[in-house]
């Protein structure tokens, strides 16, 4: 079957099977920031936005995105770079494998929550696992990023 959707502002067409998940489609389209991690809906590495909402692309049927808007890190590169600098300055990424998913979720949180405190940040990002940093440096970076002058 064939689907059409908007990927990072560009209309695209993809051929899929009924059980293809969105993760495979966006990677096939060259969005390699979207990582295949646990595949049990737990790690957050595959986070993309579907109509602006963060979702797990490993658990989203590709057929369901017909006519909808999908955004990956490639579509928000300017904001991602800005947040990425904060992460780098605080040692908030080591292997970097989780960073794209984390950044997508932080940017979604920034839009959704108004001045979140640290507990709210931790809760919102609980579905983004990192096996390198222990989270403290990521949280410092996010706190500074959210408190930056814009």
């Amino acid at each position, binding site marked *: *079957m064939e689907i059409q959707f908007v990927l990072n502002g560009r209309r695209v067409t993809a051929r899929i*099977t*009924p*059980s293809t*998940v969105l993760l495979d489609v966006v990677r096939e389209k060259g969005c390699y920031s979207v990582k295949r991690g646990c*595949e*049990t*809906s*737990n790690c*957050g590495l595959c*986070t993309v936005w*579907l109509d602006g*909402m*963060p*979702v*797990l692309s*490993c*658990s*989203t*049927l590709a*057929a*369901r995105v*017909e006519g909808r808007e999908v955004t990956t890190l490639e579509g928000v590169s300017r904001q991602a770079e800005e947040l990425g600098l904060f992460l780098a300055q605080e040692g908030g990424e080591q292997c970097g494998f989780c960073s794209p998913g984390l950044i997508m*979720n932080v940017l*979604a*949180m920034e839009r959704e929550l108004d001045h979140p405190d640290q507990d709210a940040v931790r*809760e*919102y*990002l*609980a*579905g*983004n696992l990192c096996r390198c940093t222990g989270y403290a440096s990521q949280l410092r970076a996010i706190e500074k990023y959210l408190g930056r002058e814009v």
Partner: protein
Amino acid sequence: MFRAKEYKKVESLEEAYELNQKRSNVLVGGMMWLKMGRGQKGTLIDLSGLGLDQIQEDDKEFRIGCMCSLRKLETHKGLNEYFDNIFRECTRHIVGTQFRNGATVGGSIFGRFGFSDILACMLVTDAWVELYKGGTIPLAEFAARAYDRDILVRVIIRKDGRKAAYITQRNSGTDFPVIACGVARKDGTYYFSVGARPAKAALVVRPVTGESLAEQARKAAEAYTYGDNMRAGGEYRRHLAQVYIRRLLERLEQTDHKAGEDAGRPEPESQKSGPWVAGQEPEAGRSGPAQEGV
């Protein structure tokens, strides 16, 4: 991950029901749990085009569509104001925001999973399940039923004035709960729900008695059976259930007390003569229905 031969975004519940009668076909909710399965499916039946992803509220009830996400449940202002944030509490520990944006209420309730926070929480409210062919039945009855091929269309929660509280314990954040406890009270009746035992949650209804809250909690916890799994042993769960139910009962008492103070009224009845002691006769009008048991 399973494979499927076809995908169908249905245009009516009747179409979905007809397709769902074939055993190899499967209704797709959020797909969080379903995707863990293997093998070949027939047709994936998608209800996402039927407008069942919303929570509707009027002065009598909340009507929660089966495709409503857990995140909507978590953030719905009306639900959380009416039930003192129990829906936020029962959802916020579930994996992560992205997961809860995908997982659906229908998938959680229809699955009747032992680990389900949603089922454990909703059971203490006046919740009903609207089935496409099976009519509208109490959630507690639905939870005890065997699986069939009907379609869960909505969960309806009536505004019957219950005060409710909910709590879980997890070995680590975002994991499945080791125990999940809910308590609600209306007039002279307590509604208890304990899930992740690890068996699925079930409702126990008991009268409010003159006994201490600890004793009432003990009796409620003893009405359930507990088992072992990789997360905890049965005896540990039994102990946790007793402690958490007592804490929830205390929380409900405190809520009453605060409401009384806020309104400038005298303390509620339940606070006047406390603490209750075992063996004390219940006050007149405090006895509830005789229904009891899991």
